[in-house]
């Protein structure tokens, strides 16, 4: 702490903490997971050009085909090519969690910075409020949102963003309270800078790496929750391709001994979530100086 320069001009180093993040180096597992995530993001972006068949509707003559030259992963009960649905489903399956993470990170950061800066009773009240939200698990809040506003993704994404906010808000608040005690913040205050300027422009960059690690892990969990919602038939509605909905639709085929149309999206869900967890946690470990 004492090593931190008190003069704002010397505090430049504190403003470039992202330089500390050499994400691309390090363990093989971490690199493999990053590569995997990059691949999935590319697939999501290029989905319409990658699908070999129509990802939404199949041919009725082609129901429940095994894997073959024309259909690498076979077809489902509606005769839809599983690989095409998987590729197209990458979009919906990644877009939902992205919404949750962006919303909850913005909201949580705002709440965390504000309460840490103000302190006192505002901080105490906000802490209580966050505890209350914490009692509502994300998936339950999403199900309640569907019950109120109907099936689809918009309401559940907003509900889950609210459910994820306490995690981010607590993290940001804790870090911001530590930062606030540092001399560079006192220096900015003495110079008469405004609270929004100091917290957002000067404090936030120092918190950002840890926040990024947390948001990465959150992305994985949000993906799980939204896939579960679609699996329950309450989220993305068929025939729109989505991993959770595909697993749900493929269940009947599982009982007929043709599990591929359900297992392929299940494997995709697990792979992506493992990758997000590994990347997020190794990021967190690295920042905490616990590099293994």
């Amino acid at each position: 702490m004492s090593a931190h320069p008190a003069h704002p001009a010397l505090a430049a180093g504190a403003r470039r903490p992202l330089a500390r993040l050499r994400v691309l180096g390090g363990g093989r597992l971490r690199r493999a997971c990053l590569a995997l995530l990059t691949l999935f993001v590319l697939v999501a972006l290029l989905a319409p050009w990658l699908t070999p068949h129509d990802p939404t509707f199949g041919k009725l003559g082609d129901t429940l085909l095994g894997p073959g030259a024309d259909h690498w992963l076979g077809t489902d009960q509606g005769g839809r090519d599983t690989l095409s649905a998987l590729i197209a489903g990458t979009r919906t399956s990644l877009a939902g969690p992205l919404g949750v993470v962006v919303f909850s990170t913005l909201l949580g950061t705002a709440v965390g910075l504000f309460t840490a800066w103000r302190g006192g009773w505002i901080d105490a009240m906000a802490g209580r409020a966050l505890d209350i939200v914490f009692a509502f698990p994300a998936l339950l809040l999403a199900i309640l949102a569907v019950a109120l506003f109907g099936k689809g993704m918009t309401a559940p994404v907003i509900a889950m963003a609210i459910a994820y906010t306490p995690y981010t808000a607590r993290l940001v608040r804790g870090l911001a309270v530590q930062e606030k005690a540092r001399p560079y913040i006192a220096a900015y205050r003495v110079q008469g800078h405004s609270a929004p300027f100091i917290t957002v422009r000067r404090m936030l960059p120092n918190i950002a790496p840890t926040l990024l690690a947390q948001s990465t892990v959150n992305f994985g969990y949000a993906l799980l929750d939204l896939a579960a919602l679609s699996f329950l038939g309450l989220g993305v509605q068929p025939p729109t391709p989505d991993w959770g909905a595909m697993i749900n639709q493929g269940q009947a085929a599982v009982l007929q001994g043709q599990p591929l149309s359900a297992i392929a999206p299940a494997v995709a869900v697990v792979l992506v979530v493992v990758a997000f967890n590994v990347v997020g946690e190794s990021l967190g470990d690295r920042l905490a100086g616990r590099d293994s």
Partner: protein
Amino acid sequence: MTAVAARAARVLRRLAAMAATLLVTSFLVFSSLFLAPGDPASFLVKGRSAGPAELAEIRRQYGFDEPFLVRYWHWLEGVLHGDLGRSHLLHQDVASVIWSRLPASLLLIGVSALMIAVVGIGSGVVGALRRGSRTDRSLMLLVTVGAAAPAFVAALLLRSVLGVQLGWFPTIGNGTGLLDRLHHVVLPAAALSVTFVALVTRVTRSAMLDELRREHVEVALSRGTPRRTVIRRHVLRNALGPIVTVSALLVSGMLVSTAIVETAFGMSGVGSLLVQSVDQLDFQVVQAIVLLVVAAFVVVNALVDLVHPLIDPRTAAAGSAR
């Protein structure tokens, strides 16, 4: 203040905090109805045609013409007397619908909790005692995958392999009679456990490692106390605190996951009732189940805070010193 008085004060404070949390959460669950688009009375009978007479009856029954807080008060009074409202779809009391579904869900949760405790704590202990070994590394890899394997994926794989391919377990329904019920609940309980076993393993392992590093463990070992005794009475005993605390936080996630597992295995329980009720627009039932899940979470966490000093007396000492 004497120790007993201090303890009593601590218990009362915690119970008061629990009551306050229950009050606020119940208010939020109650108010959620009014977030729904349109008139609340017609929202409650959504999906079916209801005449003006029926709508007027609902409006009177729910007191939609009274002030908001009065409505909440009447609703809360009902809930405290076990009246969770009436399902307009099933024409039954919500409480009795839930009550009839509860035993199946409790069996599922009980068997699953047993699996989580035995397998989770067991493999956490093994991992910590053989830190860095091949066993430990494979366990950690399994934990990483297990934590990311949602209940519906676990359900799918277990059904596909153990149910359909090998035919060891039934793949659908609740079963009848005790043994048949237990046979039916094995796969669902396993599917429900996977994620939580992974999390409990991780927590147990790190709590054990923290304790193993302590001086008192080294002292006990150097005095010639058998290693097994030290592990059991010093290491595991002290590690139980964090394990129990984290497990309590997992309760709500587990309760919600019963919805997934029961739906996947075609079981009739409270979880599948929640999904069906959302599907069939039976909001009264949804609201009641949400309320029960949240209340269960709040109560379990309060209980764990109260029981914690019995497991680990140091926390009580720390609490009264504050």
